[in-house]
């Protein structure tokens, strides 16, 4: 089995599984309890906060709020901030966000705020000139993903933030870092990011855990009410096994300093073999460009439906997804791909290949070979 759907989820590191199992077997204490074993668990959790702060390029005094994953982190950032604002404020959001952001923005709109959509260009990047025209002194919240989950385009978050701050110095900049965290550099302080959402299971950690990094001084209204954990911002007993597992994943990723290089080398190796085929195109920045994430490759096979290609690859024990896994259930043409100017047929013929640290060069070669073989076979049968 060659697993090339790491943007949907990744296989956890063995050490992650071990640390979770140890936590459940022996250190199962409620981290909020008063006795020492509980305190030890709390300390371990705080070490995880520190590791995330370092990796997100945040400051020591900034906060890390543990959540149940990327979706909850995005919800808390957006709804939590909106609840502190007057409806004269407007929100800016890119037009290619994951539903965790896009649908939450729809809620914000129903709350009475104006939500403005930032357009993207043919390379799948937000169009900064157009964005600037959308901003004004009432722009209170700007949300843009770090890396597009569909094309792997690294978004110009720093420029966007600077631009917004020039219009309104109190603007909050939110970045959905689910596809970017620890694979593409993030420095919240330097890049002017106030709210950064990350997820555990995309970095070989456990599912059901994530975090929202909140710059000190940013006020949020809790969206989960209860026992007052996380300084009252996110109530609920700590999911300690998952948090400790997340810590281990962050540590393992951090220990591989060449991780981005390693992923990029794999991606370029695969693309080198695919790009020579007639009728194959890459969507978004090309793999040798600086704004292309090292682990995501969106490829269109001319005349072969993405779904058919995906099924056929599955038959060869190679797992990929069409478009992005989250929208592939709905089976409509991807809004991002269409926004990038692809025709319906081209967008329909797209698969997403996403790499993880467990992939190998041999897998790239084998996958490329199978893709070529299937492309040649399947392209013969077109709708007449």
């Amino acid at each position, binding site marked *: 089995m060659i697993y090339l759907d790491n943007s949907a989820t990744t296989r956890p590191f063995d050490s992650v599984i071990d640390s979770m199992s140890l936590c459940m077997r022996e250190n199962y204490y409620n981290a909020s309890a008063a006795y020492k074993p509980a305190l030890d668990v709390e300390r371990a959790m705080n070490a995880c906060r520190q590791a995330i702060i370092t990796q997100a390029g945040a400051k020591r005094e900034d906060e890390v709020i543990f959540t149940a994953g990327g979706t909850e982190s995005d919800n808390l950032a957006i709804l939590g901030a909106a609840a502190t604002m007057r409806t004269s404020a407007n929100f800016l959001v890119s037009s290619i966000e994951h539903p965790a952001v896009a649908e939450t923005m729809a809620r914000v709109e129903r709350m009475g705020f104006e939500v403005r959509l930032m357009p993207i260009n043919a390379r799948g990047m937000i169009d900064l000139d157009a964005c600037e025209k959308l901003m004004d002194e009432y722009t209170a919240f700007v949300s843009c993903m770090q890396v597009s989950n569909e094309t792997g385009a690294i978004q110009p978050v720093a420029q966007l933030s600077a631009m917004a701050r020039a219009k309104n110095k109190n603007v909050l900049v939110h970045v959905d870092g689910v596809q970017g965290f620890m694979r593409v550099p993030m420095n919240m302080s330097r890049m002017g990011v106030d709210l950064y959402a990350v997820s555990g299971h995309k970095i070989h950690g456990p599912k059901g855990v994530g975090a929202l990094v909140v710059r000190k001084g940013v006020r949020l209204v809790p969206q989960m009410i209860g026992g007052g954990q996380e300084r009252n911002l996110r109530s609920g007993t700590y999911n300690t096994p998952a948090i400790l597992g997340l810590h281990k994943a962050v540590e393992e990723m951090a220990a591989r300093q060449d991780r981005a290089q390693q992923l990029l080398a794999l991606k370029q190796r695969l693309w080198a073999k695919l790009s020579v085929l007639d009728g194959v195109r890459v969507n978004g920045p090309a793999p040798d460009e600086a704004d292309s994430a090292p682990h995501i490759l969106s490829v269109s096979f001319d005349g072969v*439906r993405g779904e*058919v290609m995906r099924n056929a690859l599955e*038959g060869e024990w190679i797992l990929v997804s069409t478009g992005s896994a989250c929208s592939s259930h709905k*089976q409509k043409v991807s809004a991002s791909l269409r926004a990038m100017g692809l025709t319906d047929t081209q967008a329909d013929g797209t698969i997403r290949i996403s790499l993880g640290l467990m992939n190998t060069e041999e897998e790239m070669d084998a996958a490329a070979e199978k893709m070529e073989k299937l492309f040649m076979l399947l392209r013969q049968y077109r*709708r*007449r």
Partner: protein
Amino acid sequence: MRQILLVRFGEVFLKGQNRPFFMRKLIDHIRFAIREVGGNVWLSEGRIYVSDFSDLDECIRRVTKVFGVHSVSPAIEMPKDDFEAICAQAAEMMRPLSGTFKVLARRSDKRYPMDSPAIMREAGGYILEHVPHLSVDVNHPDHEMMIEIRDHAYLSVERIPAVCGMPMGTNGKACLLLSGGIDSPVAGFMIAKRGVELCCVHYHSFPYTSERAKEKVLELARLVSEYCGRMRVHVVPFTEIQLQIHEKCPENFTTLIMRRYMMRIAQIIAEREGAQALITGESVGQVASQTMEALGCTDEVVSMPVFRPCIGMDKSEIIERAEQIGTFETSSLPYEDCCTVFTPKHPATHPRKELIRKAEKALDSEALIAAALEGVEVIEVG
């Protein structure tokens, strides 16, 4: 005193000399349906009773899905000698209810000291006295308290309608062409309801349809099997046939020719399964392959009768039925059961048989069918 379930059966009582056969089937199916909640099923004086189950609601849910059952009533079985106790129990059962009531009585034990009118009168009076918020209406009561005196006394108020039909397996066997759509599970249900045992055929076009599409079909089969019991689904690899048709036949005939192959293969599988008919979910005029002429073209290739119980139904009626039997939600899942690569832009709506026959000559039918049958995967559901 214990809680039992009284089961009424529908059309079976119309049967004459072979009635015991129908009854035996019906009891077997009820036994099978409740196997997971436990319970005894027994026949007494022409009535079916279920007792000693672990969960009444689940037992009702399952028994009301057995074909041949007309309605059920949760009932209390108690000794018949103490009439005062019977009245007290009846009043107890009526207490949570409101509105009007009447008491019905039936006495099969003719040695019982009171006759039916006396039982009705006495029990009715007792209830009226002890449950003052109820009143009597003998013509259109909201509730009917049924008291039956047999070997024991049986008291019941509630009557829950069941699926009706005839006991499964009393009317032969048929083979259902099951797609992932809304219509075919409904068609299967409707024929199965008449006591017909089912088996299914599904055509799978990997990689043009996905594993999930196949899983969806199996789930639909499982939902139908909640009514008709365990059955076999034959999953036929269909890609090669579709590709050959796509390549060698005129575009406007491709769907029809595909349908003809589906029917041919289904008939062979039906014969192997000992089935005597085919079932499809077609409705006249719904799509191009379901016009009168098109149906004629697909019927032509098989000798078995083809049952199309949805033939005169509107789509909305079929959907309503699918919702009732619980298959609509699964049918509406988005996984495609047919790839658009193979759907012609302008399918023939008034095909002429001789042209179709001629177009089909381009294919090596025998080899294609043999190869498809070779790859059949049989999955048991239910």
